[in-house]
């Protein structure tokens, strides 16, 4: 061969990769007429740079046989140390030159198909170069790995050609693989994973050798590593975090659909609108109750109507004649004669700031629940003088029991409007002192008999409400000091 090569020089065209004998066509490419050619020498083969691999069967038409290609017997994996303890044997590796500069490699990997990568029963995959079959086979393997452990980040042992590779360490096996369009790596702790173990009737076995079954795979898929000493973490202790394993197992994100875990945690068993446990239901119900705490309460009063409220000076007859004191029933701070307060249309007065912050949320007098917007409309509809007369009318109203606007608030907005209206339209305007509170020592029996402290169902519009009585007993009605009949303490 060597003598033959020396006799006839082979020329290589860098343009079209054609080859010919120099003594036949010279140094110009006979195919593309390029002059970018080179004589192939034994110690320098330009075809190596192009990774040109000659076809297996040189054309018969060429009289002398082609020299053997230097890469013909080259195995790119030959010198790579096989760190895989269970490297995939390659069967029927085939090389085909499918064109200039291209090599098509096909082959079949025969791999043991066991969950932890230990040499088990080897089940050869079908000798099939169909990429979909390869993909399907590897997907099955990948799913097994996922079911058994967790997907991990970049790993080693990746091999081209769409095959999986397994690497074993003490108690840990790493799998990875990639192929056209996909790549995966998984790590499996065999301390946690129990592979499919055939029964061995000849040797004693621990009593609780688990066998891979659907339930286990599912639970591990859903829960991640499972503590063998207890149920899933979500079922064991609702107060603990989901990935708060106390076992000697590696921690990591749940392998699959971590968002499902909250569903199975009793402390958090809600997903969207659905709840799955009584606790979760209670929690959501509490939330709703909180949110709608004031749901039925009157809405806010307009800033305009709040700003229209008259500001008055505290006069002597507005304070307790004995102590000379009065306080704002919202902040419970004392007010003094001459101090400025804001009076609502119903006649109750408060610190402007205090009542303003309340009215901005609820249009309702803190004392009698009359809305200021509507009371103003009513009052203005009648006559402006009537409102001004309220303070002076209070003495006339003393001791005359009135239908309490308070009691009527609980039925409905329309009823409360009626009550409010009646309060305004009544001969004596609704002045705190004019409500005719029961005596301060109104006995508990009457309070209990009323049974009307709770809700609209039992509340009679004509009987003084419980809260009102309580306020008469303990609360300090703002204007009540002006009423000698009202024992506010």
């Amino acid at each position: 061969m060597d003598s033959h090569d020396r006799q006839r020089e082979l020329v290589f065209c860098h343009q079209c990769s054609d080859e010919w004998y120099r003594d036949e066509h010279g140094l110009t490419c006979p195919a593309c007429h390029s002059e970018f050619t080179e004589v192939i020498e034994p110690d320098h083969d330009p075809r190596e740079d192009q990774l040109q691999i000659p076809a297996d069967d040189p054309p018969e038409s060429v009289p002398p046989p082609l020299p053997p290609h230097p890469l013909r017997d080259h195995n790119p994996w030959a010198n790579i140390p096989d760190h895989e303890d269970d490297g995939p044997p390659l069967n029927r590796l085939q090389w085909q030159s499918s064109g200039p500069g291209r090599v098509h490699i096909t082959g079949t990997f025969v791999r043991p198909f066991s969950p932890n990568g230990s040499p088990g029963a080897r089940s050869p995959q079908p000798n099939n170069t169909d990429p979909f079959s390869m993909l399907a086979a590897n997907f099955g393997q990948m799913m097994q790995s996922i079911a058994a452990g967790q997907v991990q980040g970049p790993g080693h042992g990746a091999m081209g050609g769409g095959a999986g590779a397994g690497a074993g360490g003490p108690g840990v096996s790493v799998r990875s693989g990639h192929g056209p369009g996909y790549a995966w790596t998984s790590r499996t702790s065999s301390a946690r994973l129990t592979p499919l173990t055939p029964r061995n009737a000849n040797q004693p076995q621990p009593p609780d050798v688990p066998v891979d079954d659907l339930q286990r795979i599912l639970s591990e898929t859903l829960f991640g590593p499972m503590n063998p000493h207890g149920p899933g973490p979500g079922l064991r202790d609702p107060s603990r975090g989901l990935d708060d394993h106390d076992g000697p197992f590696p921690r990591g994100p749940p392998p699959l659909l971590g968002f499902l875990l909250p569903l199975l945690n009793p402390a958090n068993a809600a997903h969207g609108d659905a709840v799955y446990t009584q606790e979760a239901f209670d929690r959501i119900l509490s939330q709703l109750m909180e949110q709608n705490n004031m749901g039925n309460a009157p809405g806010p009063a307009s800033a305009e109507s709040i700003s229209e409220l008259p500001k008055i000076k505290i006069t002597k007859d507005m304070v307790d004649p004995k102590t000379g004191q009065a306080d704002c029933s919202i902040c419970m701070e004392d007010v003094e004669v001459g101090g400025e307060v804001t009076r609502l249309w119903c006649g109750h007065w408060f610190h402007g700031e205090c009542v303003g912050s309340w009215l901005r949320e609820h249009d309702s007098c803190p004392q009698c629940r009359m809305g200021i917007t509507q009371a103003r409309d009513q009052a203005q509809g009648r006559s402006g003088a009537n409102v001004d007369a309220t303070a002076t009318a209070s003495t006339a109203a003393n001791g005359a029991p009135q239908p309490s606007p308070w009691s009527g608030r609980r039925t409905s907005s329309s009823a409360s409007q009626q009550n409010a209206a009646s309060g305004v339209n009544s001969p004596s305007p609704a002045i705190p002192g004019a409500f005719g509170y029961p005596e301060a020592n109104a006995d508990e029996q009457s309070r209990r008999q009323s049974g009307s402290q709770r809700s609209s169902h039992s509340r009679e519009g004509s009987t003084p409400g419980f809260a009102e009585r309580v306020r008469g007993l303990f609360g300090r009605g703002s204007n009540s000091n002006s009423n000698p009949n009202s024992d506010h303490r």
Partner: protein
Amino acid sequence: MALPKRIIKETERLMAEPVPGITAVPHEENLRYFDVTVDGPSQSPYEGGTFKLELFLPDDYPMTPPKVRFLTKIYHPNIDRLGRICLDVLKSNWSPALQIRTILLSIQALLGAPNPDDPLANDVAQRWKEDQNAAIQTAREWTAQYAKV
């Protein structure tokens, strides 16, 4: 956050002029949190029982009502098994002129006048309506079992 003067005043008055049958003691470390006891009203199935409650004054109190919850198990159509109370003045009928004292009196009165038509504990309310005597008997038993000191 400084404690509003109103809360201090209310607490002082609760101490100085306690309501018969009701105690409310603030926690030392959190003056907005009260340990409450309410005696069952006489001539009610809860008579003789002392019921523990917790009461918390939110940050925006008195613009929002106190949060109150029974800690003692009680059989009542308007109190559920978590101790939550269905009481209008604790919710939509709250008013800033109401106080801890008045709220606790309302709760005590609620014990004396259950309202099964506006239930929170549905099963209890159902039984209360269907067989009031049996329901009251159960309430007595629960009182004896859980609310006796």
